[in-house]
Structure formats: C-alpha cells, structure tokens
C-alpha cells in the first residue's frame, strides 16, 4: 500500500528545500547584504544563484553515479577511509547547522513571541519536537512541509504585496557602487545559505523519481532566489540601506509595520512570525534528520536510536552554547566560509573524478 514506503515525491522535496533555504536566508541575508553592498545586494543574489546552479550541476554529476546511497557511492569512489572522513564532514555540517538554526529559532521566539522565556526550555522544546518528527521518518517530515507550504506562502505574498505601497524607489540607488571584494563576500554569504541543497544527495534512495532530483533542486534554487530578491528590494525600498543594516531581522520588523486594509488586528508580526518559525523549524529538522541518518549509516545502526541521541545532544549543547558564548557566531561564520564551503565543493568535485578514474581503471583491468 501507499504509506510507510519511505518514498517521497518531487513536490515534497522541492517544498522542503524551499522552506529550508528560504527561512534562514530571508531572515539574515538582507541585513548582511545591505551592510556590505547596499543596493548591489541584488547582484550578490544573482551571482550567488549562478554559484548555486554550479552546485546543482555538480550534484547532478554525482547523483547520476549514485546506485544505492550516497555513503556507498563515496566508498566506491574514494575508498572506506576517505568515505568515512567525508561522512564525518557532512555530519559536522548538518549537526552544526541544526544547532545554529536552533539558536536562531530560539532567538526569534524569545524576541517576538516569548520575551520572558528561558532559552534553554525553548531550545529543548524545539528539539524535542524535531526529535518526534525525526522518529516518524522521512515521509512524515516531507508531508508536514508539503502541507504547510501554501499556508505560509499565501499570507507572505499578500503581506509583501501590501508592503509595496511603502517602497521608495530612490532607496534602490546608488547601484554598482560597491567594491568587488564586498560583492564577493555578499555572494559567498548567499551561497552559504544555499548549501542545505546538498541534502538531496542523501535523499536519492527515498525519492520516487530519482532522475529529476537535480532539476527539483534547481527549481527550488530559482524560487528561493526570486523570493529573496523580492524581499531584498522591498526591504531596501522601505528601510533604506542604513536602517536595514542596523535592524536584526528587518523582514519581521516590516511585517509589524504593514496594516491590512480594513484589518481587525493592528499588527501582524506575531502571526507572520509563524512563517519563519515553520521555515526555520524545517531547516532545524533537516539538520537533525540528516545528521542522524549519516551517523546511522556510518555506524551501520539498524534503528536510529543511538544516532538520534548523539545528534540531539550535540545539537542541543552547541545550540545553547551560542547563547552562552557570543563569539561562537563568528566562529560558525568562519567555519562555514573556510571549511564547509570549500569542503562541500571539493567533495562534489573529487567524487565524480575519483569515480570516473576508478570505473575506467576497473574497466580496463576487466578487459585485460
């Protein structure tokens, strides 16, 4: 029968990827881009998207070679030890991503919804919920985000449309005034937000139409870039470069300013926080799910009890650590820029090459 078959559709994967990337990027990127590049931030998004296309292309090359799962492919291409090292690299990426998103989501809750709450309790509740979701498997996870996609998307589009009234076009200038270095840093920043796309490499065994996974990722990339572009232009037009550079989460501030015509509620920010809450939770959930999956495969665990416990504990303590040590945010940024980004691209370049060499060599040996 249909359910519990561990197979998910392309629509589910696409919506999951969109929410994964959109939440964190729309929340953090406007401030980063605005402080670095002003109106030129839009070019960073475009260049970032080009980088994203390259990433998707590389993933496609790898996806074609994956027969069973990604781990087996890595072992086939580079051997057991290197494969294991790559898996540890991915585990660290996803578990730190989970903890960072946990920190961001908790921050969002404490700032906008529960100012007197305890970050430990909020983090714990969020992680427990993500654990519940992870226990329920990939199908359940995909269905949650498939169903809430338009419930979040429609109000967001309406609010953005209403915000257009407040936009001052003169705030979109001057353009092409940033230095190349700033543009490069802005592009890198957006590209880092696109890295959760690599989760599809692990999703191949769970997908119904495996050959279209990369296309699906490409389409998610296009939609997220478009949404970020629209949001960036609106925010820039409403706040201007200087104000936006100061605001911590300008998109939510914008939501508190928009009034629905004839609306009953005076402010919509509390309700609209739900969009980012769910989107961030999706990424948090992805981080926990992927890190658990990687540990499970790495240690050949039959269930996922121990893998989940380890991922959970690491994510919780790292997440809470962000509150305790302010400088961790900077360390995380450095880690993403100098280790994760080159590492991800490097692995995606090395694997098909190694696989090609190995298959050619084995083929020749076989012929002899």
């Amino acid at each position, binding site marked *: *029968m249909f359910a519990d078959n561990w197979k998910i*559709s392309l629509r589910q994967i696409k919506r999951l990827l969109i929410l994964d990337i959109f939440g964190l990027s729309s929340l953090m990127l406007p401030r980063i881009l605005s402080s670095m590049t002003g109106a030129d931030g839009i070019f960073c998004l475009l260049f970032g998207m080009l980088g994203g296309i390259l990433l998707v292309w590389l993933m496609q090359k790898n996806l074609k070679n994956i027969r069973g799962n990604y781990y087996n492919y890595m072992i086939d291409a580079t051997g057991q030890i290197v494969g294991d090292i790559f898996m540890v690299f991915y585990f660290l990426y996803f578990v730190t991503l989970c903890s960072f998103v946990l920190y961001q989501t908790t921050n969002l*809750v404490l700032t906008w919804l*529960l100012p007197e709450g305890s970050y430990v309790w909020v983090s714990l509740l969020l992680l427990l919920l993500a654990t519940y979701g992870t226990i329920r498997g990939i199908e359940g996870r995909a269905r*949650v985000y*498939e*169903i809430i996609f338009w419930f979040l998307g429609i109000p967001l589009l309406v609010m953005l449309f209403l915000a257009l009234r407040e936009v001052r076009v003169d705030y979109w200038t001057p353009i092409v005034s940033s230095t190349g270095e700033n543009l490069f840093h802005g592009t890198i920043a957006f590209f880092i937000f696109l890295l959760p796309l690599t989760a599809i490499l692990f999703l191949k065994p769970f997908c119904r139409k495996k050959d279209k996974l990369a296309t699906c990722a490409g389409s998610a990339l296009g939609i997220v870039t478009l949404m970020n572009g629209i949001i960036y232009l609106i925010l820039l037009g409403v706040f201007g470069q200087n104000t936006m550079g100061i605001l911590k989460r300008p998109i939510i501030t914008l939501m508190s300013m928009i009034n629905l015509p004839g609306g009953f509620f005076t*402010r919509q920010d509390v309700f609209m926080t*739900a969009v980012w809450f769910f989107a961030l939770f999706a990424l948090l959930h992805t981080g926990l799910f992927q890190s658990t999956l990687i540990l499970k495969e790495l240690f050949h665990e039959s269930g996922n009890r121990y893998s989940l416990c380890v991922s959970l504990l690491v994510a919780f303590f790292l997440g809470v650590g962000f509150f305790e040590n302010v400088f961790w945010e900077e360390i995380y940024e450095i880690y993403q820029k100098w280790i994760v980004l080159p590492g991800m691209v490097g692995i995606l370049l090395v694997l098909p090459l190694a696989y090609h060499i190995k298959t050619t060599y084995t083929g020749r040996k076989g012929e002899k």
Partner: protein
Amino acid sequence: MPIQITPSLKENIDNFETLFSDCADIKKRKIKVGQKLEQQCYIAYIEVAISNVDWKDSAVGKFLQALRNLPEEELVSYVKQNVEGISDSQPFATMEDAAQGMLTGDVLFFLDGYNKALKIPDKGYPGRGVYETESEKVIRGSNEGFSESIKLNTALIRKRLRSPHVKVKESFAGRRTHTNVDLVYMKDLIYPGMLEEIEKRLKEFEIDGALDSGIIEQLTEKRKYSPFPQFQTTQRPDRAAMAILEGRIVLLSDNSPVALILPATYNTFIQTSDDYYSRWEIASFTRLLRYLASFLAMTLPGLYLAMTNFHTQILPTDLLLSLAAARQGVPFPAAVEIVIMELAFELLREAGVRLPGANGNTIGIVGGLIIGQAAVDANIVSPIVVIVVALTALCSFAVPNEEFATAFRILKFVFIFLCAYLGFFGFLLGMLGILIHLSHLESFGIPYLAPFVGADLNGYRDERDTFLRLPLNFLKKRPVYTREGARTRLKLKKQEKK
C-alpha cells in the same frame, strides 16, 4: 470435542437440553409428524424470534404442515432432498453449530432418524426497522439510516448498489457473542491488499463480546494512542454506498447501527453526503466552513488566551479596553476562566446526551442561557469567554463526524494549556506537533492527510475534492484508494451536433 448429531432423536434432545438447560427464553417442542402422526420431531427456537402469531404462514409452519401429509417412511428422505428448497435453511452436523444457528434467531429442527439438525429461517430477532438517522442530518438526500440488524443494513446498501460486483464477506467476532461482521466492498474497485489487511486484523484478536462496531474499531486500529479515528463511521446507507463506489470497504457489525468505513482520511471526515447532491458552489462553501470549524474547534480558546495574555499589541486599543472592562471583577486568571467554562460546557453536553430527548434540549437551554448569564452576572466569568466557548462549541458541532470532532474537543485542552503558558509560541508548537502526528498517521496504508500530501500518486486529481468540491464533471476519476485501472468514475458523452 464437538457433539455429533445422531439419528437418535432422544440422544439429540438430551444433548440439546443439557446445552440449553436453565434457558427459559428458549422454547423446545416435541411434535408428531407423518400421516399417522407416529414419527417424532423436535423444534427449538428463541421465544420472540419467530412468528408465533401466524404460525401457519411462517416457513417452519408450512414445513411442518408438509411433513404431516407424508407417510412416516418417506419423512427422512423428504427432509434430506428438500433442505435446499427452503431459502436460507442449513443442515448442521454438530450440536454446537446447530445451537449457534438457532442463536441467530432461527428455528432448529431435529427429526428422528435424521443425523443432522436443520436451521429453518424465520423473522429473526426483533429490531427497529429502518428509521431516520439521528446524526449526520442532511438537507438534501435520503433520510434512511442503518439499524441494529446487519441483514437489513446490507440490504440497504444493496438497494443502492445493484451490481454483482458488490461482495459481502461474512465473519464472526466475539467468542461468546458470535457477532456477525460483514465486509461490504466492490470487488473490481478495492485496492489490492486492503481486504486482506482488514481480514488479517480481524483475526488478530479474540474477545469475549463484540457488542458494537466501536469495539471492533478500537481493536483493529493501528495507532491506538492517536486521538484521531482511523475508521470513518456512518449511520447513513447512502454514505456507505458512496464509499464503496470509491473503492473503500464498509464494515458492518450486527447489533450496531454504525458502519465503519476504511480507509479514512482527514478529508473524508469533513465530507458529507449532500456535498455531492448540492450544487458545487454551496458544497464548496460549506466544505470550507467545516475545515475552518475543525481548526477553530481545537484552537480558538487557546488563541484567545495567547492574544489576551501575551500579545495584546496586536489587538486594537478599543477592543483591548473593552476586554479589560469586561474582565473587571472576575477573580480568576483568563486560563482558569476558560477551563471552567469549557468544562461546564462539556458537562452540559454530556448531561444533554444522557437525558431523554425533551429533557436533553431543556438542559441545553437551561445551561446555555441561564447558567451562562448567571455566571457572567456573578462575575465568575467574563462575557467574552462565554462567547469564545460558545463559538468553539459551534465549531465542534459543525464537524460532520462525531468521533472526529471528539479529537478536536480533547486537543482543545492541550492548546489551552500550551497557549496559557507559552502564548503564540505554544500555539505554534501545538500545531507543529499535530501536523507531525497527522503526517505520519495512516489508515490502511493511506496517508491521513491525503490528498493534501502524496497527491502525485493520482496525478493531483484528488485535490479537486478537498477544500473546494469542484463541479461533478471535473471529478471524473475516483480517489487514490481505488484500484489502479478502475479509477474512471464519470464519462461524459459528447452532445450530438444538431
């Protein structure tokens, strides 16, 4: 070791009477048959289960009359040869099977020299007949409802589905009650494996008594700790027939007017029969209302608490002031106020259900109007809380399925608790928790949230009958739980050009 029925009538009578000793309701008679009235037979039946008013017109009366006109030496051969001539008659070789045959409400017949007992059908147990259903009222459509007799219920379905593809598979549940359980389905429409799955689950338990379909439902559900039912229930034969036409299976249990339908999804619980009898605009509008009602029945009191206790900034100042004025003098915190009123309402509902018809209505009026007003006057609760609780109740009544609405009634208290302590964050946590729960829940292999999820399995066509019920000519295909290759429901013949 089963007791075999022998040609000796005396031995059979002894065995039968030992089995049914101290059973005053079971009538046993020795009757002489044959032309000379020299051969003895024995009949046994449950007192009210056979027609004692007009004995001659009944099958057993006619059968005995025929035996009186035959010579004694031909009686046994006549009975042997003519068993199949009487509709629904059945010979039994063992005393236990014969006893079970009689307990279905028919007459048991023993004849000296015949080594079998014969079940001769009669009117069976007394029942209500076909009455109007008390729940699931519709504006348009049939008003017939299921009754307690399983035979009558299957006939009501047959009446609507006159096709040889409709199959009725009979089994029994309850070691002591031996309750008939029928699975009714359309052979060429059900999804492969679904029938086997329910049959497997029915065999997985042995219970003393299955007095209602509710017991079977609970014992065959996979996720026993979920508040959401995994079987749809109905008392309407047309709803059951409609489900069968969608490739679903209807489970009928004797002595229960409630049929179980499987598989069930969130969407099927929100649908009603008249959604398809009415025009699509009104059907879609009421469908949307019901979806909204199912959401508010669970969340409205919680949202009220979150807004008034945590996020007052979103409310207009005038409203905020009037809310504060309304709450002046109320000694309890808003959460306690809500819980008191909700519990009072649940008590009223329970009292209204248990009391006989007219008194039940009175309780509603007394409780709703007088106690509510008195509570507001006495400053125990604020008027706004009465409004919130009343609206929540209305929403729960708008959900067409009682069992499904109960899930929201229970979860409402969870939301009250979450929102009272965590505000809107609690609401979001609760919603996510329920979404995660629902997204992994399934009923006989079908995702509970179908067709909002997994709609690709049927080419996204099932989405045409969800929030909106599109015009019938858009609903050409049956839902995903129908067998592949048999999903065409409607073919439109092109109008001939004049």
